[in-house]
């Protein structure tokens, strides 16, 4: 009993402000998105919960009167293609770096690590010129092509760490049977690396879904935008009273990631720590 009180006082009471700090903006976003304008813009009403009944009006406006559904489609297509391509490229590179011996393995590993640390805000201006020369400016393909610049280093790094935990003996057995490296990679290593691959897919998809700077810089037509940029730059209209649909947009746009996260939290945790801790 005393131990329980002690635990509550030294652990659960101090951790509570952190939990509230982390979640409150989301709670408030959800509450706002469900409130009628009359209540939303009455400074005397309590903003912390809904008093005058919930409404889906803001969501209706979003789906019917904006390009929101279009942005959803764009974001999904870009994220899916960029993610799958980057995980395949990353797996091949990781396998080479973790398992094969060749001249230059060291410098290559360092190069991957260095590009992993280069922030997009250092590159977006010249990258916009490259995108332009490829004839992809103002196209969603500009994003499919550029997102791998931060996904490939991350996936390679993550999967390298993961492949090192798979015993080599399994591959050696297959080699005695005369299997080619590529067959070994697809038939033996990849199935064993499924948890690592799931982690890479999840992280890559999450990165793509929320990417903001490249999408903002490379795409100028409203109907080609991705969700994050569309919600931030196109939902803000001339009048003041847009907060309801703005919050509804943020909630709906975050929803797929929230669902993935709720279902597969452990993969997120392992990916997050692998990114920084494992050498």
């Amino acid at each position: 009993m005393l131990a329980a009180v002690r635990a509550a006082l030294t652990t659960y009471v101090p951790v509570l402000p952190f939990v509230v700090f982390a979640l409150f903006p989301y709670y408030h976003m959800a509450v706002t998105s469900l409130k009628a304008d009359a209540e939303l813009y009455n400074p005397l009403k309590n903003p912390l919960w809904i008093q005058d009944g919930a409404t889906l009006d803001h969501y209706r406006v979003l789906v019917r009167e904006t390009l929101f559904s279009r942005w959803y489609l764009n974001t999904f297509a870009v994220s899916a293609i960029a993610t799958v391509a980057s995980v395949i490229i990353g797996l091949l590179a990781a396998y080479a770096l973790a398992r094969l011996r060749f001249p230059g393995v060291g410098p290559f590993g360092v190069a991957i690590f260095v590009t992993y640390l280069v922030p997009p805000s250092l590159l977006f201006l010249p990258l916009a010129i490259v995108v332009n020369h490829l004839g992809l400016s103002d196209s969603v393909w500009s994003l499919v092509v550029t997102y791998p610049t931060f996904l490939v280093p991350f996936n390679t790094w993550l999967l390298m760490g993961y492949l090192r935990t798979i015993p080599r003996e399994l591959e050696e057995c297959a080699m005695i049977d005369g299997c080619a490296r590529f067959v070994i990679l697809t038939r033996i290593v990849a199935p064993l690396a499924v948890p690592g691959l799931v982690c890479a897919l999840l992280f890559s998809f999450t990165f793509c879904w929320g990417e903001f700077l490249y999408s903002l810089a490379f795409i100028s037509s409203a109907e080609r935008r991705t969700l994050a940029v569309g919600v931030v730059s196109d939902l803000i209209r001339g009048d003041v009273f847009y907060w309801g649909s703005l919050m509804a947009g943020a909630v709906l746009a975050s929803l797929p990631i929230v669902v993935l996260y709720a279902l597969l939290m452990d993969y997120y945790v392992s990916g997050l720590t692998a990114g920084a801790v494992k050498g």
Partner: protein
Amino acid sequence: MPDAGAGGRELTARGRARPLPRAAPRSRRSSEARLAYAFLAPAALVLGGLVAFPFGLALWFSVSDAWVGEYGRFVGVDNFVRLLGNSIFRQTLQNSLVFTASAVALKTVLGLTLAVLLYRVRRFRRLVRGAVLMPFVIPTALSTLGWWWLYQPTYGVLNWVLRRLGLIGVDLPWLSDPSLAMASIVIVNTWRGLPFFAVTLLAGLVAIPREYYEAAATDGAAGWRSFRYITLPLIKPVLGIVILFSTILTLADFNTVYVLTKGGPMNMTHLFSTLAFQLGTAGGRISDGAAVSLFLFPVLVVVVALQLRLVRRQTAYE
């Protein structure tokens, strides 16, 4: 040499097996190398064409007078000299320092505290970890919109709570007063980066053998003393990596500032990235923009060098 002597047959990149000649190890090695290069080629193409090449372009732009659509001619360090003489740029330099130093310091202190607390949480462990990790997972630009709404002076919840508690008489202009705006973006950046610190440091805490604490306890050291003399020294390498990593991410932050203030009021919250964006895309002054983002480069070099040393030292322990 784990795959030496694999049954007297050599494997080629195409997957056909042929009988091994006498010089087996060497030819095996060269075919392995060819395969490795083939596997690395797609990654090399992406990173060479879309990271290294644009980076080279950025270097060129920063020493040329390029405007939209042209490559410009060499002007030496003119862009940098002009930037350093520009009051907006000097303000940005100062903002970046204040922003990065205070956000990283806050994240370190709060992150370490949160990691220690998470380490002790037994019941509801998944729920608590799941909750504090949320800001890292949800797209930043969207959750920053939520903060924008919290900071709204008239209808925002922050001023409402402060009014209710009797702490303020008039509404605070969170995003339009220079120092409040800086504080506001520091808070949001801290909020977003805290989970990364907490979860990574937690992994470091879990790796510390329990026996150390038990031995310390028998010697009468507990609480703060065991934290100071056992936890802190042992978690230092991880802490170092996390701080370095976060320094570059914080300094290069774009989303927070763009969504909340766009660099205002009066350029008091501009960071390198937002100023580069404003000059390069909105203003069409690509060379100036590139020169501004290149100021991130020296910091990046230092961080990468230290990071590599730390990572190598850590892997050497394993």
